């Protein structure tokens, strides 16, 4: 069982100290998280790691998952898409069903706690059934440009909470409640991010038949047009005229994404017979392989045209890699251009930055070191735990902007 002490020397001491101080103040209080799945997706992934850590701090922690049928999850998927700007068809019946399923869950779930974090829009109507405690809506998705009438429906519930938490300031919405900004984080001790030996990295390179004879450019992402894989290939070709290198495009198989197969076909066709382009289709649970790929890369790309927060950027930065990222979504919150990585707006920009990094290893090393330090200070799971407890404590001391512990 993982404990907070395991992060000593990895996470900033100040974060660990504050977690201990806050949890002492909140000792034996009940902390309830509610979401819609125990596995799959970033929210479940982070809760799986975070719950045991919180439990070890003397808090009474529970994690509940709402139950729903296929119809419910089809509706919530449409809500999710519309909140991110995609037009979907909705009927009043669908909204009534969204509420009814939550109402049914409210009858079976124990909603009594001192603080209740409700994650994302699936369980947002549960606020109608509050008994006690502070209710906080944790929105993990980019709702900066939603379909307005869908946002109106969701905010009718969200606005009833005591506070809301968004991942980036530009994702926040106008509501008359307190709104906090807490960026997503990675776990440095997880399979995807823990240190690997050179033997482990070499084993992965051999298995994927990637010779380590020249610099490796890497992009890890779903095969999705918004991640611009063909743009990455074009940037690689621009670089190749000046610097010999390999390109690795690694992504998960997109069985739940009808467009995924088409995108993979397009990329493979576009890459042609170039033996230095490696297109890897990774199965689920390939965390250690992704870790090794990131560690063997010389430069990591995330040339997205549209992005949520972009935790693959954080992962690569944590491994001390110079990252070249698209200037979209949450990527600018991580990359300070020229300091912790490079922000680009075009394929040409990406190609130019790759050439700079390949030709100046000392500069690349410096940027990678800055990147790792920046992630250590801002994007590790301990910072997120600290901030959740901070929000709770701040809400108990509402009106104070400076608190002394």
């Amino acid at each position, binding site marked *: 069982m993982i404990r907070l002490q395991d992060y000593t020397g990895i996470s*900033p*001491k*100040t*974060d660990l*100290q*504050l977690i201990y*101080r*806050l949890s002492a103040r909140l000792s034996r209080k009940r902390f309830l998280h509610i979401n819609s799945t125990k596995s799959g997706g970033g929210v479940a992934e982070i809760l799986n790691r975070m719950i045991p850590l919180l439990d070890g701090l003397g808090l009474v922690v529970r994690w509940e998952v709402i139950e729903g049928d296929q119809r419910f999850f089809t509706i919530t998927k449409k809500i999710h898409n519309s909140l991110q700007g995609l037009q979907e068809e909705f009927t009043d019946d669908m909204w009534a069903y969204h509420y009814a399923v939550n109402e049914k869950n409210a009858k079976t779930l124990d909603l009594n706690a001192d603080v209740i974090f409700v994650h994302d829009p699936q369980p947002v109507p549960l606020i109608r059934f509050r008994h006690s405690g502070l209710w906080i809506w944790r929105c993990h998705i980019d709702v*900066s440009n939603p379909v307005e009438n869908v946002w109106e429906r969701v905010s009718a519930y969200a606005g009833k909470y005591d506070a809301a938490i*968004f991942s980036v*300031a*530009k994702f*926040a*919405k*106008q*509501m008359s409640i*307190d*709104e*906090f*900004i*807490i960026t997503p984080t990675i776990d440095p001790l997880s399979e995807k991010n823990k240190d690997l030996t050179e033997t482990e990295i070499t084993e992965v390179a051999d298995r994927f038949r990637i010779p380590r004879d020249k610099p490796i450019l890497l992009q890890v992402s779903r095969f999705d047009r918004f991640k611009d894989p063909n743009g990455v290939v074009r940037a690689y070709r621009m670089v190749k005229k000046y610097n010999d290198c390999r390109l690795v495009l690694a992504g998960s198989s997109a069985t739940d994404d009808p467009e995924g197969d088409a995108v993979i076909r397009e990329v493979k066709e576009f890459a042609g017979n170039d033996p230095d382009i490696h297109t890897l289709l990774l199965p689920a649970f390939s965390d250690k392989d992704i870790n090794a790929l990131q560690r063997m890369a010389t430069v990591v790309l995330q040339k997205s045209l549209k992005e949520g927060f972009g935790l693959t950027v954080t992962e690569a930065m944590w491994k001390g890699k110079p990252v070249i990222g698209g200037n*979209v979504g949450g990527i600018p919150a991580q990359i*300070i251009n020229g*300091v912790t990585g490079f922000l680009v707006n075009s394929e040409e920009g990406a190609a130019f930055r790759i050439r700079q990094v390949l030709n100046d290893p000392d500069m690349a090393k410096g940027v990678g070191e800055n990147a790792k330090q*920046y992630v250590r*200070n801002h994007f590790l799971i301990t910072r997120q735990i*600290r*901030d959740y407890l*901070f*929000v709770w*404590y*701040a809400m108990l001391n509402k009106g*104070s*902007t*400076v*608190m*002394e*512990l």
Partner: protein
Amino acid sequence: MQLFIFKQCTSILKATQQKAATIRELVLGIKEVSDASIFHHTYQYFLKGHILEYTNDFAQWVGEALEEKTLSEHLSIIDPYTFDKISELRTRIVGVIKDYLGHFPEPRPALRGNEFYFNESATIIFPTGIVAHNLAEFLQALKYVDSSSIYYHFYEGRSRGIYGPDDFSTWLSDKADEKELSERLRHIDPFMYDIESMRRLIVQIVEQRVQKDMETL
């Protein structure tokens, strides 16, 4: 000599739900937002842990998102520590922008996604567990305390209550009988260093004094 208790601070961002896409919207926002928001975007600029070519968030946004370099230079020269009240600082920032707009063409709006978001912060202050009883211990602690402690005592200290000197130089002059050393720290330009560079500079200045002390008969 009275001891120096090293404290540190941690802040969390709060959205104010106000944003600006144009220079005029920025002015409107600066006039309307809370004192806490103005404080966050000016005094707390150093909490971000790095400095670029600007000294506050307004100057940075004007320079980067609006690409209005001249105005960002005018905003960067504003020293928040010379104002007794946030309202005076607010008036000054608005005045600088209005004066600029009276002489130059209106800048283009920021591209979508690059708007200025007015934020505030909530701060928790807590002890580091490190205490200095003399100058040598003070020097040792300066080398190893968390950077948020340097921020808290050197930057935030200046804006606590009445705007005055930082906590380090106050302790050195008032409690450690080190007036000359205190003066040297007070003359450091806070805008020219990020926190880690500032730490190195303070350590260097204090170390010289400790060395001198060691060599004195």
